[in-house]
């Protein structure tokens, strides 16, 4: 089951890791994505740290780490096909993170709360 952040990321717990992407709402707001810069695997990140740069035809945006931890994988395929973020935002994951304090997603928004957020 997906959880969401107020920064329009979706989070999916997979074992002791969390896979992170951006929501359809975010991808619509960004417009056509043309460039993505991903963090290095193995990097330790703080919650709220800007770790992905996403450039659309309109502007540059950042994606933050939703939780403190270590980046265990990045979706390098996105670098060559950034438009996948618009085509299928739920499949176009950005990175996996192993949280420092366990993969507890209970503090994040559920579907209903996220839908309420974006109105």
């Amino acid at each position, binding site marked *: 089951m997906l959880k969401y952040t107020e920064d329009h990321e979706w989070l999916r717990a997979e074992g002791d890791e969390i896979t992170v992407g951006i929501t359809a709402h975010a991808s619509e707001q960004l*417009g*056509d994505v*043309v*460039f993505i*810069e991903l963090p290095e695997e193995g990097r330790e990140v703080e919650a709220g740290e800007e770790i992905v*740069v996403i*450039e659309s*035809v*309109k*502007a*540059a945006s950042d994606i933050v780490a939703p939780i403190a931890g270590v980046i265990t994988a990045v979706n390098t395929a996105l*670098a060559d096909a*950034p*438009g996948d973020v*618009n085509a299928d935002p739920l499949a176009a994951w950005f990175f996996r993170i192993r949280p420092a304090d366990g993969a507890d997603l209970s503090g994040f928004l559920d579907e209903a709360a996220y839908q309420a957020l974006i109105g």
Partner: protein
Amino acid sequence: MAEELRRTGLYDLHVARGARMVPFAGWDMPVQYPMGVLGEHLHTRTHAGLFDVSHMGQVLVVPKDGSLRTAALALESLIPADVLGLAEGRQRYGLFTNAASGILDDLMFANRGDHYLLVVNAGCADQDIAHLQMLDAVEVIPVTDRGLLALQGPKAAAVLARLLPEAAGMRFMDSRILGWNGAELWVSRSGYTGEDGFEISVPEAHLADFAETLLAQPEVAPIGLGARDSLRLEAGMPLYGHDMDADVTPAEAALGWSIPKIRRPGGARAGGFPGADTVLAQLAAGPATTRRGLRPEGRAPIREGVPLFAAPEGGDPIGQVSSGGFGPSVGAPIAMACIPADIPDGATIHAELRGKRLPVTVTPLPFITPSYKR
């Protein structure tokens, strides 16, 4: 800043078609439709795109003594172009210069037999009109009861010929008055995309009808300002307020081509426009910096304001990006900037993006080959 945004006669059409509206030069304008900027850009390059450019200023300049020559010479006192030599039914590109040799605005002017029709940038229109009103010999009439459309792309001529058969016979930069359903349309074969196409001034009462009729043609999609910007950037066309302004000279903006020999030293009507001495001296000697194309390595766009450096480390900036983004038809990021003129095409300079210096190749403009119907 609380001033209400102005709406064009096509506001309802934009909203009905799902446009995202944004403020632009005091107007509420469509930046994109559901097709999205990339799709709209590519549609214009392969089919035909319809742009609402009604925010642009349309101005008639009429000689008070009835002699077109009077109006031509009056305009030449503000614009370093050959206005007098422009034949009836033809249009040209020109610049308003200031006393400091900068550019006040760029414009199109058309000879319409007994007067000139000018089209100026939305953000400069009020200032341009005030500037023109300093001319004693002409009456300056802002056109307030018309919208302006641009139909651009390889299918534009075939589409427009269905509605206006005479349009098919027009050449690039021809300007004609054509009738449609009882309305008088002012049509020029020109645009701001690098594609063949037309700009069409339509009376407000017929504007929505005419736009809907064009949009009902299978090749035509509505295109927002987002794609208009990426199309003109690929075509190497400068945007006023970004790639040139009151502090940038014609030579620096790489617009010296718009100043013909007849207005240069030795020409029959040399000089005689604001800033002429400096503008002409700089054209002759070559400017120290000039507007060039840039191709960043990789896929990261470099946007307006990004500083440029000669070396991968250290040194002072040699310029900054004036327009930049992703070029959908180029398939890569592209940009323009005013940089030292002695840097050759093909040279590598560096753009500082998010604290890192990214290699950028200096290239000639435009980035795509225009397909005008000359």
